[in-house]
Protein backbone atom coordinates (compact mmCIF):
# COMPACT_ATOMS: atom_id res chain seq x y z
CA UNK A 1 0.00 0.00 0.00
CA UNK A 2 1.12 3.51 -0.70
CA UNK A 3 0.01 6.41 1.44
CA UNK A 4 -0.08 9.94 0.11
CA UNK A 5 -0.22 13.42 1.56
CA UNK A 6 0.15 16.91 0.14
CA UNK A 7 2.49 19.67 1.11
CA UNK A 8 4.26 22.54 -0.58
CA UNK A 9 7.66 24.11 -0.72
CA UNK A 10 9.03 27.39 -2.04
CA UNK A 11 11.20 27.80 -5.06
CA UNK A 12 12.20 31.43 -5.08
CA UNK A 13 8.95 33.37 -5.24
CA UNK A 14 7.12 30.40 -6.66
CA UNK A 15 5.24 27.76 -4.72
CA UNK A 16 5.64 24.11 -5.67
CA UNK A 17 2.95 21.70 -4.53
CA UNK A 18 4.62 18.52 -3.32
CA UNK A 19 3.07 15.09 -3.16
CA UNK A 20 4.57 12.95 -0.40
CA UNK A 21 4.28 9.21 -0.99
CA UNK A 22 5.23 6.54 1.53
CA UNK A 23 5.94 2.91 0.95
CA UNK A 24 6.88 0.57 3.77
CA UNK A 25 8.15 -2.90 3.00
CA UNK A 26 9.47 -5.72 5.14
CA UNK A 27 13.17 -5.95 5.73
CA UNK A 28 15.83 -4.35 7.85
CA UNK A 29 14.83 -0.94 9.24
CA UNK A 30 15.70 1.83 6.88
CA UNK A 31 14.28 5.27 6.23
CA UNK A 32 15.12 7.01 3.00
CA UNK A 33 13.79 10.01 1.16
CA UNK A 34 13.97 10.30 -2.60
CA UNK A 35 12.92 13.18 -4.84
CA UNK A 36 15.81 15.65 -4.62
CA UNK A 37 15.64 16.50 -0.93
CA UNK A 38 18.09 19.05 0.41
CA UNK A 39 19.94 18.50 3.67
CA UNK A 40 17.11 19.81 5.85
CA UNK A 41 14.56 17.56 4.13
CA UNK A 42 16.94 14.58 4.34
CA UNK A 43 17.27 15.10 8.06
CA UNK A 44 13.53 15.08 8.52
CA UNK A 45 13.78 11.27 8.77
CA UNK A 46 15.33 11.61 12.23
CA UNK A 47 12.84 14.27 13.34
CA UNK A 48 9.86 12.25 12.15
CA UNK A 49 11.15 9.04 13.74
CA UNK A 50 11.70 10.70 17.08
CA UNK A 51 8.49 12.75 16.96
CA UNK A 52 6.36 9.67 16.30
CA UNK A 53 8.01 7.73 19.09
CA UNK A 54 7.71 10.57 21.58
CA UNK A 55 4.07 11.15 20.72
CA UNK A 56 3.49 7.53 21.70
CA UNK A 57 2.80 6.34 18.19
CA UNK A 58 4.41 3.23 16.81
CA UNK A 59 7.17 3.74 14.31
CA UNK A 60 7.07 0.99 11.69
CA UNK A 61 10.23 -1.17 11.83
CA UNK A 62 10.46 -1.92 8.08
CA UNK A 63 12.03 -0.30 5.07
CA UNK A 64 10.43 3.11 4.64
CA UNK A 65 10.75 4.88 1.34
CA UNK A 66 9.44 8.41 0.98
CA UNK A 67 9.05 9.85 -2.49
CA UNK A 68 8.52 13.54 -3.02
CA UNK A 69 6.95 14.39 -6.34
CA UNK A 70 7.71 16.18 -8.62
CA UNK A 71 10.99 14.31 -8.38
CA UNK A 72 13.00 16.71 -10.53
CA UNK A 73 12.58 19.80 -8.37
CA UNK A 74 14.73 20.36 -5.34
CA UNK A 75 12.75 20.30 -2.08
CA UNK A 76 14.09 22.56 0.58
CA UNK A 77 13.54 23.27 4.22
CA UNK A 78 11.89 21.39 7.00
CA UNK A 79 8.28 22.30 6.16
CA UNK A 80 7.61 18.83 4.75
CA UNK A 81 8.18 17.07 8.11
CA UNK A 82 4.53 17.04 9.06
CA UNK A 83 3.33 15.61 5.78
CA UNK A 84 5.90 12.80 6.02
CA UNK A 85 4.74 11.90 9.54
CA UNK A 86 1.08 11.98 8.49
CA UNK A 87 1.77 9.80 5.46
CA UNK A 88 3.46 7.20 7.66
CA UNK A 89 0.49 7.22 10.04
CA UNK A 90 -1.88 6.69 7.12
CA UNK A 91 0.22 3.77 6.00
CA UNK A 92 0.08 2.33 9.51
CA UNK A 93 -3.69 2.70 9.53
CA UNK A 94 -3.80 5.23 12.35
CA UNK A 95 -5.50 7.74 10.08
CA UNK A 96 -7.59 6.86 7.07
CA UNK A 97 -6.53 8.15 3.69
CA UNK A 98 -9.73 10.01 2.96
CA UNK A 99 -9.27 12.20 6.01
CA UNK A 100 -6.38 13.99 4.39
CA UNK A 101 -8.11 14.64 1.07
CA UNK A 102 -7.92 18.28 0.02
CA UNK A 103 -5.77 19.15 2.98
CA UNK A 104 -2.26 20.50 2.80
CA UNK A 105 0.22 19.95 5.61
CA UNK A 106 3.06 22.27 6.47
CA UNK A 107 5.26 22.21 9.52
CA UNK A 108 8.57 21.33 11.03
CA UNK A 109 8.58 18.70 13.77
CA UNK A 110 10.69 18.88 16.86
CA UNK A 111 12.07 15.66 18.32
CA UNK A 112 9.30 15.72 20.90
CA UNK A 113 6.58 16.08 18.26
CA UNK A 114 5.87 19.78 18.69
CA UNK A 115 5.18 21.74 15.53
CA UNK A 116 7.63 24.50 14.81
CA UNK A 117 7.04 27.52 12.62
CA UNK A 118 8.45 27.45 9.10
CA UNK A 119 9.32 29.94 6.39
CA UNK A 120 7.26 30.79 3.35
CA UNK A 121 3.76 30.06 4.67
CA UNK A 122 2.23 33.24 3.26
CA UNK A 123 3.16 32.59 -0.39
CA UNK A 124 1.95 29.00 -0.04
CA UNK A 125 -1.37 30.09 1.46
CA UNK A 126 -1.80 32.70 -1.27
CA UNK A 127 -1.26 30.17 -4.03
CA UNK A 128 -3.54 27.46 -2.63
CA UNK A 129 -6.70 28.01 -4.68
CA UNK A 130 -4.60 27.20 -7.77
CA UNK A 131 -3.78 23.81 -6.32
CA UNK A 132 -7.27 22.56 -5.40
CA UNK A 133 -6.70 22.58 -1.70
CA UNK A 134 -9.60 23.24 0.62
CA UNK A 135 -7.77 23.51 3.91
CA UNK A 136 -4.27 24.17 5.08
CA UNK A 137 -2.79 22.78 8.26
CA UNK A 138 0.06 24.80 9.73
CA UNK A 139 1.97 25.16 12.99
CA UNK A 140 0.11 27.43 15.41
CA UNK A 141 2.94 29.96 15.18
CA UNK A 142 2.30 30.32 11.44
CA UNK A 143 -1.48 30.49 11.71
CA UNK A 144 -1.75 34.26 11.56
CA UNK A 145 0.54 34.36 8.56
CA UNK A 146 -1.56 31.74 6.78
CA UNK A 147 -4.76 33.63 7.59
CA UNK A 148 -3.36 36.82 6.10
CA UNK A 149 -3.82 35.25 2.72
CA UNK A 150 -7.60 35.07 3.32
CA UNK A 151 -7.88 32.53 0.51
CA UNK A 152 -8.54 29.17 2.13
CA UNK A 153 -9.41 28.10 5.65
CA UNK A 154 -6.33 27.44 7.71
CA UNK A 155 -5.97 25.61 10.98
CA UNK A 156 -3.13 25.86 13.46
CA UNK A 157 -1.81 23.04 15.62
CA UNK A 158 0.71 22.85 18.43
CA UNK A 159 1.89 19.28 17.99
CA UNK A 160 1.54 16.12 15.98
CA UNK A 161 -0.89 14.57 18.47
CA UNK A 162 -3.36 17.41 17.95
CA UNK A 163 -3.21 17.00 14.19
CA UNK A 164 -3.84 13.27 14.49
CA UNK A 165 -6.80 13.63 16.84
CA UNK A 166 -8.24 16.36 14.61
CA UNK A 167 -8.01 14.09 11.59
CA UNK A 168 -9.73 11.35 13.56
CA UNK A 169 -12.58 13.23 15.20
CA UNK A 170 -12.65 16.56 13.35
CA UNK A 171 -12.30 18.76 16.42
CA UNK A 172 -9.46 21.25 16.03
CA UNK A 173 -7.65 22.67 19.06
CA UNK A 174 -8.35 26.20 20.22
CA UNK A 175 -7.14 28.57 17.52
CA UNK A 176 -4.96 31.22 19.03
CA UNK A 177 -4.66 34.37 17.02
CA UNK A 178 -3.37 37.66 18.25
CA UNK A 179 -5.27 40.62 16.93
CA UNK A 180 -3.66 42.01 13.86
CA UNK A 181 -2.34 45.48 14.51
CA UNK A 182 -1.51 47.82 11.70
CA UNK A 183 1.90 49.21 12.31
CA UNK A 184 2.59 52.86 11.74
CA UNK A 185 5.84 54.25 10.47
CA UNK A 186 8.09 55.26 13.29
CA UNK A 187 11.70 56.16 12.85
CA UNK A 188 14.14 56.93 15.59
CA UNK A 189 14.97 60.20 13.93
CA UNK A 190 12.47 62.73 12.65
CA UNK A 191 13.15 65.49 10.14
CA UNK A 192 12.22 67.97 12.82
CA UNK A 193 15.26 66.91 14.86
CA UNK A 194 17.69 67.61 12.05
CA UNK A 195 19.02 71.13 11.83
CA UNK A 196 19.60 72.95 8.57
CA UNK A 197 20.14 71.16 5.28
CA UNK A 198 16.86 72.33 3.71
CA UNK A 199 18.11 71.41 0.24
CA UNK A 200 18.94 67.85 1.26
CA UNK A 201 15.51 67.50 2.81
CA UNK A 202 13.98 68.76 -0.41
CA UNK A 203 15.95 66.19 -2.41
CA UNK A 204 14.78 63.38 -0.15
CA UNK A 205 11.22 64.61 -0.53
CA UNK A 206 11.51 64.45 -4.32
CA UNK A 207 13.19 61.06 -4.04
CA UNK A 208 10.37 59.70 -1.91
CA UNK A 209 7.64 61.20 -4.07
CA UNK A 210 8.88 59.72 -7.32
CA UNK A 211 10.94 56.77 -6.10
CA UNK A 212 14.19 58.26 -7.38
CA UNK A 213 17.65 56.93 -6.57
CA UNK A 214 19.62 59.47 -4.58
CA UNK A 215 23.25 60.19 -3.79
CA UNK A 216 24.27 62.60 -1.06
CA UNK A 217 27.84 63.88 -1.07
CA UNK A 218 29.06 65.72 1.97
CA UNK A 219 31.82 66.15 4.48
CA UNK A 220 31.76 64.25 7.77
CA UNK A 221 29.18 65.60 10.17
CA UNK A 222 27.07 67.32 7.56
CA UNK A 223 24.16 65.11 8.51
CA UNK A 224 24.04 62.68 5.55
CA UNK A 225 23.57 59.53 7.56
CA UNK A 226 21.15 61.17 9.96
CA UNK A 227 18.96 62.40 7.12
CA UNK A 228 19.02 59.04 5.43
CA UNK A 229 18.01 57.30 8.65
CA UNK A 230 15.06 59.68 8.93
CA UNK A 231 14.10 59.06 5.30
CA UNK A 232 11.66 56.13 5.85
CA UNK A 233 9.58 58.53 7.96
CA UNK A 234 8.53 60.52 4.90
CA UNK A 235 7.50 57.51 2.83
CA UNK A 236 3.82 56.61 2.61
CA UNK A 237 2.64 53.22 3.85
CA UNK A 238 2.43 50.47 1.26
CA UNK A 239 -0.71 49.82 -0.72
CA UNK A 240 -2.39 46.46 -0.17
CA UNK A 241 -0.85 44.90 -3.28
CA UNK A 242 2.61 46.18 -2.41
CA UNK A 243 2.21 45.01 1.15
CA UNK A 244 1.47 41.44 0.05
CA UNK A 245 4.45 41.48 -2.34
CA UNK A 246 6.82 42.61 0.41
CA UNK A 247 5.35 40.24 3.00
CA UNK A 248 5.81 37.31 0.61
CA UNK A 249 9.48 38.11 0.23
CA UNK A 250 9.93 38.45 3.99
CA UNK A 251 8.06 35.22 4.54
CA UNK A 252 10.38 33.36 2.18
CA UNK A 253 13.41 34.90 3.84
CA UNK A 254 11.98 33.95 7.24
CA UNK A 255 11.78 37.54 8.46
CA UNK A 256 8.01 37.94 8.60
CA UNK A 257 7.06 39.15 12.06
CA UNK A 258 4.30 37.27 13.80
CA UNK A 259 1.03 37.63 11.96
CA UNK A 260 1.62 40.97 10.38
CA UNK A 261 1.56 41.97 6.79
CA UNK A 262 4.38 44.39 6.30
CA UNK A 263 2.81 47.69 5.45
CA UNK A 264 5.72 50.02 5.98
CA UNK A 265 8.32 50.28 3.23
CA UNK A 266 11.34 48.17 4.17
CA UNK A 267 14.53 50.08 4.92
CA UNK A 268 17.66 47.99 4.54
CA UNK A 269 21.09 49.31 5.31
CA UNK A 270 23.71 46.64 4.70
CA UNK A 271 27.21 47.26 6.00
CA UNK A 272 29.75 47.99 3.28
CA UNK A 273 31.57 44.70 3.87
CA UNK A 274 28.58 42.85 2.38
CA UNK A 275 29.36 40.24 -0.27
CA UNK A 276 27.95 40.43 -3.76
CA UNK A 277 25.77 37.42 -3.02
CA UNK A 278 24.50 38.98 0.19
CA UNK A 279 23.50 42.05 -1.76
CA UNK A 280 22.09 40.49 -4.91
CA UNK A 281 20.97 37.12 -3.60
CA UNK A 282 22.40 33.70 -4.30
CA UNK A 283 23.57 30.45 -2.83
CA UNK A 284 23.24 26.99 -4.27
CA UNK A 285 19.50 27.39 -3.89
CA UNK A 286 19.31 31.14 -4.51
CA UNK A 287 18.05 33.14 -1.55
CA UNK A 288 16.86 36.73 -1.79
CA UNK A 289 19.55 39.34 -1.16
CA UNK A 290 19.33 42.82 0.30
CA UNK A 291 18.08 44.34 -2.94
CA UNK A 292 15.08 42.00 -2.88
CA UNK A 293 14.48 42.55 0.82
CA UNK A 294 14.31 46.27 0.08
CA UNK A 295 11.70 45.74 -2.66
CA UNK A 296 9.13 48.59 -2.53
CA UNK A 297 11.34 50.26 0.03
CA UNK A 298 14.77 51.73 0.45
CA UNK A 299 18.24 50.28 0.08
CA UNK A 300 20.51 52.60 2.02
CA UNK A 301 24.18 52.25 1.17
CA UNK A 302 26.18 54.44 3.50
CA UNK A 303 29.78 55.09 2.43
CA UNK A 304 29.07 53.89 -1.09
CA UNK A 305 32.76 54.06 -2.05
CA UNK A 306 33.66 51.48 0.56
CA UNK A 307 31.50 48.75 -0.99
CA UNK A 308 33.27 46.16 -3.08
CA UNK A 309 33.40 47.20 -6.68
CA UNK A 310 32.01 43.86 -7.77
CA UNK A 311 29.01 44.26 -5.47
CA UNK A 312 28.34 47.79 -6.72
CA UNK A 313 28.53 46.85 -10.37
CA UNK A 314 26.14 43.97 -9.77
CA UNK A 315 23.53 46.58 -8.90
CA UNK A 316 23.38 47.83 -12.48
CA UNK A 317 20.92 45.33 -13.88
CA UNK A 318 18.52 45.29 -10.90
CA UNK A 319 18.51 49.12 -10.87
CA UNK A 320 17.52 49.15 -14.49
CA UNK A 321 15.00 46.32 -14.70
CA UNK A 322 13.62 46.20 -11.12
CA UNK A 323 14.11 42.45 -11.03
CA UNK A 324 17.11 40.26 -10.50
CA UNK A 325 17.63 36.88 -12.08
CA UNK A 326 20.00 34.54 -10.32
CA UNK A 327 21.12 31.45 -12.19
CA UNK A 328 22.72 28.56 -10.34
CA UNK A 329 23.23 24.89 -11.09
CA UNK A 330 19.97 24.10 -9.28
CA UNK A 331 18.02 26.46 -11.53
CA UNK A 332 17.39 30.06 -12.31
CA UNK A 333 15.26 32.29 -10.10
CA UNK A 334 13.85 35.75 -10.53
CA UNK A 335 13.24 37.96 -7.53
CA UNK A 336 11.64 41.40 -7.61
CA UNK A 337 13.95 44.27 -6.71
CA UNK A 338 12.18 47.57 -7.15
CA UNK A 339 13.89 49.70 -4.55
CA UNK A 340 15.01 53.26 -4.02
CA UNK A 341 18.78 53.39 -3.83
CA UNK A 342 19.81 55.90 -1.23
CA UNK A 343 23.51 56.41 -0.80
CA UNK A 344 25.88 58.73 0.98
CA UNK A 345 29.58 59.39 0.48
CA UNK A 346 32.33 61.82 1.39
CA UNK A 347 33.69 63.94 -1.43
CA UNK A 348 37.27 62.67 -0.91
CA UNK A 349 39.29 60.34 1.38
CA UNK A 350 39.83 62.98 4.09
CA UNK A 351 36.25 64.08 3.67
CA UNK A 352 36.65 67.85 3.38
CA UNK A 353 37.09 68.51 -0.32
CA UNK A 354 35.08 71.60 -1.23
CA UNK A 355 34.20 72.23 2.42
CA UNK A 356 33.67 75.83 3.41
CA UNK A 357 35.25 75.52 6.85
CA UNK A 358 38.01 72.91 6.83
CA UNK A 359 40.70 72.40 4.23
CA UNK A 360 41.09 69.20 2.27
CA UNK A 361 44.34 67.28 2.84
CA UNK A 362 44.09 64.97 -0.15
CA UNK A 363 46.28 65.04 -3.22
CA UNK A 364 44.52 65.26 -6.59
CA UNK A 365 45.67 61.70 -7.27
CA UNK A 366 44.05 60.42 -4.10
CA UNK A 367 40.78 62.17 -4.88
CA UNK A 368 40.78 60.77 -8.39
CA UNK A 369 41.40 57.27 -7.13
CA UNK A 370 38.68 57.62 -4.50
CA UNK A 371 36.10 58.79 -6.99
CA UNK A 372 36.94 56.17 -9.55
CA UNK A 373 35.62 53.58 -7.09
CA UNK A 374 32.15 54.43 -8.27
CA UNK A 375 31.80 53.79 -11.96
CA UNK A 376 30.08 56.04 -14.45
CA UNK A 377 27.32 53.52 -15.18
CA UNK A 378 26.34 53.43 -11.51
CA UNK A 379 26.36 57.23 -11.17
CA UNK A 380 24.36 57.44 -14.36
CA UNK A 381 21.61 55.36 -12.76
CA UNK A 382 21.24 57.73 -9.84
CA UNK A 383 18.60 60.38 -10.50
CA UNK A 384 19.33 62.86 -7.75
CA UNK A 385 22.81 64.02 -6.82
CA UNK A 386 23.38 66.54 -4.09
CA UNK A 387 26.43 68.01 -2.48
CA UNK A 388 25.68 68.95 1.06
CA UNK A 389 27.58 71.79 2.68
CA UNK A 390 28.71 71.38 6.26
CA UNK A 391 26.62 73.17 8.84
CA UNK A 392 27.63 76.64 9.97
CA UNK A 393 27.77 77.47 13.68
CA UNK A 394 24.72 79.75 13.31
CA UNK A 395 22.69 76.87 11.87
CA UNK A 396 23.66 74.56 14.71
CA UNK A 397 22.65 77.14 17.29
CA UNK A 398 19.25 77.58 15.71
CA UNK A 399 16.56 76.76 18.23
CA UNK A 400 13.43 76.63 16.10
CA UNK A 401 12.17 73.21 15.06
CA UNK A 402 12.26 72.15 11.43
CA UNK A 403 9.25 70.72 9.64
CA UNK A 404 8.33 67.27 11.01
CA UNK A 405 8.52 64.17 8.83
CA UNK A 406 4.75 63.68 8.97
CA UNK A 407 4.20 67.00 7.15
CA UNK A 408 6.65 66.04 4.42
CA UNK A 409 4.98 62.65 4.15
CA UNK A 410 1.64 64.29 3.44
CA UNK A 411 3.14 66.03 0.39
CA UNK A 412 4.85 62.83 -0.73
CA UNK A 413 1.57 60.93 -0.42
CA UNK A 414 -0.22 63.57 -2.48
CA UNK A 415 2.42 63.44 -5.21
CA UNK A 416 2.24 59.65 -5.28
CA UNK A 417 -1.54 59.78 -5.52
CA UNK A 418 -1.27 62.01 -8.59
CA UNK A 419 1.12 59.49 -10.14
CA UNK A 420 -1.04 56.48 -9.28
CA UNK A 421 -4.00 58.11 -10.97
CA UNK A 422 -2.00 59.03 -14.05
CA UNK A 423 -0.51 55.55 -14.42
CA UNK A 424 -3.56 53.55 -13.37
CA UNK A 425 -3.60 51.72 -16.71
CA UNK A 426 0.08 50.86 -16.51
CA UNK A 427 1.97 48.21 -14.61
CA UNK A 428 3.91 50.82 -12.65
CA UNK A 429 2.93 53.69 -10.40
CA UNK A 430 5.96 55.94 -9.99
CA UNK A 431 7.72 58.46 -12.21
CA UNK A 432 11.05 56.72 -11.69
CA UNK A 433 9.64 53.62 -13.38
CA UNK A 434 8.89 55.35 -16.68
CA UNK A 435 10.69 54.04 -19.73
CA UNK A 436 11.43 55.96 -22.95
CA UNK A 437 8.15 54.85 -24.50
CA UNK A 438 5.99 55.78 -21.54
CA UNK A 439 7.85 59.06 -21.10
CA UNK A 440 6.75 60.00 -24.60
CA UNK A 441 3.21 59.02 -23.72
CA UNK A 442 2.89 60.90 -20.45
CA UNK A 443 5.28 63.85 -20.78
CA UNK A 444 3.48 67.15 -20.97
CA UNK A 445 6.12 69.85 -21.16
CA UNK A 446 5.95 73.58 -21.87
CA UNK A 447 7.96 75.12 -24.72
CA UNK A 448 10.23 76.99 -22.29
CA UNK A 449 10.76 73.82 -20.32
CA UNK A 450 11.84 71.96 -23.42
CA UNK A 451 14.26 74.71 -24.41
CA UNK A 452 15.84 74.75 -20.96
CA UNK A 453 16.10 70.97 -20.94
CA UNK A 454 17.95 70.88 -24.25
CA UNK A 455 20.28 73.65 -23.21
CA UNK A 456 21.04 71.96 -19.90
CA UNK A 457 21.56 68.56 -21.48
CA UNK A 458 24.09 70.04 -23.91
CA UNK A 459 25.94 71.94 -21.18
CA UNK A 460 26.14 68.95 -18.82
CA UNK A 461 26.82 66.45 -21.61
CA UNK A 462 24.01 64.15 -20.45
CA UNK A 463 23.68 60.60 -21.70
CA UNK A 464 20.37 59.43 -23.07
CA UNK A 465 19.56 57.77 -19.79
CA UNK A 466 20.52 60.82 -17.73
CA UNK A 467 18.40 62.99 -20.04
CA UNK A 468 15.39 60.78 -19.30
CA UNK A 469 16.20 60.87 -15.59
CA UNK A 470 16.09 64.69 -15.61
CA UNK A 471 12.65 64.52 -17.21
CA UNK A 472 11.41 62.00 -14.66
CA UNK A 473 12.69 64.06 -11.74
CA UNK A 474 11.12 67.19 -13.24
CA UNK A 475 7.81 65.34 -13.51
CA UNK A 476 8.00 64.43 -9.81
CA UNK A 477 8.84 68.02 -8.89
CA UNK A 478 5.80 69.06 -10.91
CA UNK A 479 3.65 66.50 -9.08
CA UNK A 480 4.85 67.85 -5.74
CA UNK A 481 3.64 71.26 -6.95
CA UNK A 482 0.30 69.71 -7.83
CA UNK A 483 0.96 69.90 -11.56
CA UNK A 484 1.12 67.26 -14.24
CA UNK A 485 2.64 69.70 -16.72
CA UNK A 486 6.41 70.04 -16.63
CA UNK A 487 7.39 73.70 -16.64
CA UNK A 488 10.77 75.34 -16.98
CA UNK A 489 11.20 75.82 -13.22
CA UNK A 490 10.73 72.07 -12.70
CA UNK A 491 13.33 71.30 -15.36
CA UNK A 492 15.61 73.93 -13.83
CA UNK A 493 15.46 72.33 -10.41
CA UNK A 494 15.88 68.82 -11.80
CA UNK A 495 19.00 69.93 -13.69
CA UNK A 496 20.61 71.25 -10.51
CA UNK A 497 20.52 67.74 -9.10
CA UNK A 498 22.65 66.61 -12.01
CA UNK A 499 25.35 69.23 -11.62
CA UNK A 500 27.83 67.69 -9.30
CA UNK A 501 31.54 68.27 -8.99
CA UNK A 502 31.78 64.57 -8.33
CA UNK A 503 32.09 63.91 -12.06
CA UNK A 504 34.99 66.23 -12.71
Amino acid sequence: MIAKTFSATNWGMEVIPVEVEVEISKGLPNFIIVGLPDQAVQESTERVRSALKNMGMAFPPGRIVINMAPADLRKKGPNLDLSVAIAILIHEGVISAKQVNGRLFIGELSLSGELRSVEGVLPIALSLPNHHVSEIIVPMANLEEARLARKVPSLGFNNLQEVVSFLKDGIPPEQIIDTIVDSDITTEIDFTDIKGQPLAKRVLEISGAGGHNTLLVGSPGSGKTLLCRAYPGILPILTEGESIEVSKIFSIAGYLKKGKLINIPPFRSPHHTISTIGLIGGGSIPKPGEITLSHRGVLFMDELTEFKREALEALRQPLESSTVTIARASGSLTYPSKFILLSAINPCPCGYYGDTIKDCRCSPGEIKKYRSKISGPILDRIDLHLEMPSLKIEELKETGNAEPSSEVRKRVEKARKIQRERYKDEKFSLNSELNPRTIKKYLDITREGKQLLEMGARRLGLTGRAYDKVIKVAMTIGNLNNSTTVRSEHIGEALTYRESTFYE
Partner: protein
Amino acid sequence: MNKKELGKWGEDYALTKLKKEGYSLIVRNFTSPYGELDLVMKKDRSLCFVEVKTKRGLEFGLPREEVTEKKLNHIKKAVLYYLNRNSNNLNPIFLYVAEVIILPEEIKFELIQVVKIHDS
Protein backbone atom coordinates in the same frame (compact mmCIF):
# COMPACT_ATOMS: atom_id res chain seq x y z
CA MET B 1 23.89 -13.82 31.75
CA ASN B 2 26.54 -11.65 30.18
CA LYS B 3 26.57 -10.43 26.61
CA LYS B 4 28.38 -13.43 25.21
CA GLU B 5 26.18 -15.90 27.02
CA LEU B 6 23.08 -14.02 25.89
CA GLY B 7 24.23 -14.21 22.27
CA LYS B 8 24.92 -17.92 22.63
CA TRP B 9 21.56 -18.45 24.29
CA GLY B 10 19.81 -16.53 21.49
CA GLU B 11 21.55 -18.61 18.85
CA ASP B 12 20.46 -21.79 20.58
CA TYR B 13 16.92 -20.49 20.79
CA ALA B 14 16.88 -19.51 17.12
CA LEU B 15 18.34 -22.87 16.14
CA THR B 16 15.63 -24.81 17.95
CA LYS B 17 12.93 -22.58 16.46
CA LEU B 18 14.29 -22.93 12.94
CA LYS B 19 14.73 -26.67 13.25
CA LYS B 20 11.05 -26.89 14.15
CA GLU B 21 10.26 -24.99 10.97
CA GLY B 22 12.09 -27.52 8.86
CA TYR B 23 15.56 -26.06 8.62
CA SER B 24 18.55 -28.27 9.20
CA LEU B 25 21.92 -27.08 10.41
CA ILE B 26 24.91 -27.30 8.10
CA VAL B 27 27.44 -25.47 10.22
CA ARG B 28 27.36 -23.26 13.26
CA ASN B 29 29.66 -20.30 13.92
CA PHE B 30 31.50 -20.55 10.63
CA THR B 31 34.52 -18.26 10.92
CA SER B 32 35.96 -16.28 8.07
CA PRO B 33 38.56 -13.48 7.96
CA TYR B 34 35.61 -11.06 7.63
CA GLY B 35 33.62 -12.27 10.57
CA GLU B 36 31.45 -15.06 11.80
CA LEU B 37 28.33 -16.60 10.31
CA ASP B 38 26.04 -17.54 13.20
CA LEU B 39 24.03 -20.27 11.51
CA VAL B 40 24.31 -21.82 8.07
CA MET B 41 21.21 -23.87 7.40
CA LYS B 42 19.39 -25.74 4.72
CA LYS B 43 15.71 -26.03 3.95
CA ASP B 44 14.58 -28.08 0.95
CA ARG B 45 16.92 -26.89 -1.82
CA SER B 46 17.69 -23.51 -0.30
CA LEU B 47 20.78 -22.41 1.57
CA CYS B 48 20.23 -19.98 4.43
CA PHE B 49 22.67 -17.78 6.27
CA VAL B 50 21.25 -16.52 9.55
CA GLU B 51 22.56 -13.68 11.67
CA VAL B 52 21.01 -13.97 15.13
CA LYS B 53 20.40 -10.82 17.20
CA THR B 54 19.17 -11.10 20.74
CA LYS B 55 17.98 -8.43 23.16
CA ARG B 56 16.41 -8.20 26.54
CA GLY B 57 13.50 -5.76 26.53
CA LEU B 58 12.67 -3.05 24.00
CA GLU B 59 14.05 0.04 25.66
CA PHE B 60 17.13 0.09 23.45
CA GLY B 61 15.25 -0.48 20.20
CA LEU B 62 14.71 -3.56 18.12
CA PRO B 63 17.53 -6.10 17.66
CA ARG B 64 17.21 -5.73 13.89
CA GLU B 65 18.22 -2.08 14.18
CA GLU B 66 21.64 -3.33 15.35
CA VAL B 67 22.35 -4.72 11.91
CA THR B 68 23.96 -1.74 10.29
CA GLU B 69 25.04 -1.35 6.71
CA LYS B 70 28.64 -1.97 7.79
CA LYS B 71 27.85 -5.19 9.64
CA LEU B 72 25.79 -6.37 6.72
CA ASN B 73 28.75 -5.85 4.40
CA HIS B 74 30.93 -7.97 6.65
CA ILE B 75 28.33 -10.72 6.68
CA LYS B 76 27.99 -10.61 2.90
CA LYS B 77 31.76 -10.98 2.50
CA ALA B 78 31.78 -13.89 4.92
CA VAL B 79 28.97 -15.51 2.90
CA LEU B 80 31.02 -15.22 -0.28
CA TYR B 81 34.00 -16.68 1.57
CA TYR B 82 31.85 -19.63 2.62
CA LEU B 83 30.47 -20.15 -0.88
CA ASN B 84 33.96 -20.19 -2.36
CA ARG B 85 35.02 -22.98 -0.06
CA ASN B 86 31.93 -25.12 -0.03
CA SER B 87 30.03 -26.40 -3.00
CA ASN B 88 26.63 -27.85 -2.25
CA ASN B 89 24.56 -26.87 -5.29
CA LEU B 90 21.87 -25.32 -3.17
CA ASN B 91 19.66 -22.69 -4.74
CA PRO B 92 18.30 -20.12 -3.97
CA ILE B 93 20.46 -18.56 -1.27
CA PHE B 94 18.94 -16.49 1.54
CA LEU B 95 20.38 -14.11 4.05
CA TYR B 96 18.26 -13.68 7.17
CA VAL B 97 18.37 -11.75 10.37
CA ALA B 98 16.79 -13.75 13.19
CA GLU B 99 15.47 -11.51 15.90
CA VAL B 100 15.09 -12.79 19.45
CA ILE B 101 13.51 -10.46 21.99
CA ILE B 102 13.29 -11.60 25.57
CA LEU B 103 10.30 -9.99 27.27
CA PRO B 104 9.15 -10.71 30.84
CA GLU B 105 6.10 -12.64 29.68
CA GLU B 106 7.26 -14.12 26.39
CA ILE B 107 10.09 -14.56 23.93
CA LYS B 108 9.52 -13.01 20.52
CA PHE B 109 11.10 -14.53 17.49
CA GLU B 110 11.05 -13.22 13.94
CA LEU B 111 12.95 -14.12 10.79
CA ILE B 112 13.63 -11.14 8.52
CA GLN B 113 14.73 -11.72 5.00
CA VAL B 114 17.55 -9.42 3.92
CA VAL B 115 18.78 -10.87 0.64
CA LYS B 116 17.65 -13.58 -1.73
CA ILE B 117 19.91 -14.77 -4.51
CA HIS B 118 18.66 -16.95 -7.33
CA ASP B 119 21.49 -18.79 -8.96
CA SER B 120 20.61 -20.09 -12.38
